[in-house]
């Protein structure tokens, strides 16, 4: 069963890589390196070994990995969808052990796979149909993105301005600053009280 899992991951990774010849070429730089993916919370590990014809994936290798990327499956999925590894790293969600430079650049390579779906589709349906379908998908995605942004903005405005259930950014910042000032004032007062008490007990 475990062999089937690593075989499936390997097949998917190599299929994706074959659709992006430039990334496949870049992969040569990692030939023979062992990169371990540790899926936190699942107890599952995968070892990726890039070779001349793609990436080999194993569930266990006796040799220690050159580099280990440790994160929850969700964080890996986010990286796979293009999120920068460094963002995840600095937010503490991704841990890199071993050769960190290797971990960074390999993560960037996988996250940056650029697949020309229109070209792949054209091989099956011909250029004209592929272009029309790709244009349709692109405008559909654009519409989704615009709608998402608009909905976000409208909801924010409704909650802040119409029903006044939430503060505006400006009010929030003002309040946070006031909290900071108050905290500093209290700390200063506390220091002063302590100093007075110390002087009094010394007399």
């Amino acid at each position, binding site marked *: 069963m475990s062999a089937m899992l690593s*075989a499936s991951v390997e097949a998917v990774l190599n299929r994706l890589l074959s659709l992006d010849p430039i990334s496949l070429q870049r992969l040569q730089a990692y*030939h*023979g390196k062992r990169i371990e993916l540790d899926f936190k919370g699942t107890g599952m590990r995968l070892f990726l070994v*890039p070779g*001349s*014809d793609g990436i080999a994936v*194993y569930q266990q290798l*006796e*040799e220690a990995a050159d580099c280990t990327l440790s994160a929850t499956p969700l964080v890996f999925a986010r990286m796979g969808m293009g999120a920068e590894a460094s963002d995840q790293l600095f937010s503490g969600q991704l841990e890199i052990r071993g050769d960190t430079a290797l971990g960074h650049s390999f993560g960037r390579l996988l996250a940056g796979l650029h697949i020309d779906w229109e070209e792949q589709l054209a091989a099956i349906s011909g250029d004209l149909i592929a272009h029309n379908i790709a244009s349709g998908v692109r405008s559909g995605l654009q519409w989704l993105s615009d709608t998402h942004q608009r909905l976000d903005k409208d909801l924010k405005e409704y909650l802040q301005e119409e029903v006044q259930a939430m503060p505006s950014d400006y009010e929030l910042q003002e309040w946070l600053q006031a909290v900071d000032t108050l905290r500093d004032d209290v700390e200063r007062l506390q220091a002063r009280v302590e100093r007075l008490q110390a002087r009094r007990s010394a007399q």
Partner: protein
Amino acid sequence: MSDPESTHFGYQKVAKDDKQNRVKAVFDSVAGRYDVMNDLMSLGIHRLWKRTAIEMSGVRKGHQVLDLAAGTGDLSSRFSTLVGDDGFVLMSDINAAMLQQGRERMLDEGHSGNIAYAQINAEQLPFAENSFDCISIGFGLRNVTDKQCALNAMFAALRPGGRALILEFSKPAPGPFKTLYDTWSFQVLPRLGKLVASDSDSYQYLAESIRMHPDQETLKGMMQEAGFERCDFRNLSNGIVAIHRGFKI
């Protein structure tokens, strides 16, 4: 008492000198469609068995690996990636047609620099003692005329600390699964062979040779007799296939 000058070729008894030629004829016949037939025979599961064998091989960067009966190079291809530029894989087979197929595949996949090819009889390895970190033989040992002799030669060619890995069909546990497996091997497989490779006899031999191969415990004993230590085996797919592993300490 069996005749020391005869051996098995499937269910037939043949002279020892004759077996090698007959096995050669079988593999000359199936070489061109070996991979397709393997997929059909095992329903693609042979890829998972080989993957498990690789994980058990413990091959590291810089290792020297000898892959016996390499066929079309499923194991060699993965070893070549694992040993990296500092390591070395010797892909070998007794059959020139199979080796040629494997060599072409390696070149097509871009494996070069750390891999070499040699036509070798597993019973008479032409290497100095203590030459390899790992010696593997995948689905090949049952075709070897004198298996004990091959195991002795593998032991001699291994370095201390090295390991031998034998991936081979074995004896499945009794039960309905075994009945199904027997039906598949003797009824379906030769017909598939005829259909795909126009050669039912060769596939009849493959099925018979699997039944004549020593079972898990016997092969483990043979490895121990050759000098291997810490021998163990792992059954895959209910014992249809077993991976034997032994170390030279």
